[in-house]
């Protein structure tokens, strides 16, 4: 082995989450420094355009809190030039001047409202709640039953998946932060977020290997047939937080 290979082994490297957090912070600084004002025409509701868009926007309007300055997200330092923030008790959606959209998820609640807010913000999003009760699929007991996303033929290419990042605390506990880069989404694709319909104790033999909350980019806005629907809906009427 050469010293070059030995050096490669010694190279200090950040974790993926650390890398992405730093990259996003650097991106904010870069965009602020260039005075860039990116638009998101490319991903603005290519499928849900028209009346539905207007209806969604109108419905979501009751939860909208418009801001023009930094500091709208609790516990977050202000960043230069963010344009719009929607705050509810369950989640916060912040749109930045560089075109990125960040979701701060505090509670698993009001998925329909989150979907409407994202759609009103120009993101072709599908927010679906899925059952958390263990179910038997073949010979396996599966907790949080959902598709094996990585094998989905409905998924956009792997490179596109990087347009959406999830930052979670250790153990996938709340709050969770999603950062979306709408410009990186192909035309007609859809962001798919799965919510758990309540957290229950899982049996010991349950397979909990599936990350139900992983955000995924689908090739179109059709939810794959393998994604189950929850029988008991989550609460949908959480009040908006006035700020």
């Amino acid at each position, binding site marked *: *082995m050469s010293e*070059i290979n030995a050096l490669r082994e*010694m*190279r200090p490297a*950040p974790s993926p989450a650390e890398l992405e957090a730093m*990259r996003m*912070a650097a991106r904010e600084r870069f965009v602020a*420094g*260039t005075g860039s004002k990116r638009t998101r025409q490319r991903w603005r509701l290519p499928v849900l355009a028209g009346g539905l868009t207007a209806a969604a926007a109108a419905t979501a309007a009751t939860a909208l809190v418009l801001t023009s300055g930094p500091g709208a997200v609790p516990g977050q330092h202000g960043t230069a030039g963010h344009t719009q923030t929607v705050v509810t008790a369950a989640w916060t959606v912040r749109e930045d001047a560089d075109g990125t959209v960040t979701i701060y998820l505090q509670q698993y609640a009001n998925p329909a409202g989150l979907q409407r807010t994202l759609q009103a913000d120009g993101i072709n999003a599908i927010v679906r709640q899925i059952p958390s009760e263990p179910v038997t699929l073949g010979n396996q007991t599966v907790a949080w039953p959902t598709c094996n996303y990585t094998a989905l033929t409905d998924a956009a290419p792997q490179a596109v998946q990087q347009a959406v990042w999830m930052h979670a605390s250790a153990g996938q506990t709340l709050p969770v932060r999603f950062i979306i880069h709408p410009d990186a989404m192909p035309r007609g694709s859809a962001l798919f977020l799965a919510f758990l319909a309540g957290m229950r104790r899982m049996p010991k033999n349950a397979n909990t290997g599936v990350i139900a909350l992983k955000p995924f980019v689908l090739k179109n806005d059709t939810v794959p047939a393998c994604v189950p629907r929850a029988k008991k809906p989550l609460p949908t009427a959480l009040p908006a937080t006035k700020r």
Partner: protein
Amino acid sequence: MVIDTQASDADLIVRSLAEPDLFTAVFDRHSAEILRYVYARLGPELAEDVTAETFLAAFRCRGRYDGAWSDARPWLYGIAVRQIRRHRRVEARRLRLLWSALADGPAPDHSDRVAERVTAQRLGPRLAAAVAALPPQDRELLLLFAWAGLSYAEAATALGTTTSAVKARLHRIRVRMRQELGDSNPMNEENDDE
């Protein structure tokens, strides 16, 4: 604005002269790689700042970009290297820390069958010290090669020199490092790199 994801870096950079927002696509395309390199050299405290400054400097001087370079990575690495130079003291301290960590680390796990890791672990302290002892410009070239994974030609572009000069310098650096590491070092294979 519609960004063609298949567009070359050169195309994006040239077009960004008229549409500055397009340069953000260059950031999105290469920032993770540049950030990893900066992180390796300067650590987490400066990685974010230096990466942002690298791309801002690139944005400001994009008018001088050579459109013949379809891949902007070597150009961006060259800018990153110049930004890193401003923090030589930090890098020197980081190399000392790396040296200490490796020197104080656990003994090599001989059950580990990954030869590279075992060898790197055994060589680590001396290797880190040898890297720290290199003149800054030699260290830059070595780490562009080892940590950024640039080829001779790419490293030459990054450093604004010729491929033959890079090859000669790198050979000289490796000879020096082997001397620093002593005659008993096991790094006597020439089958890697490039």
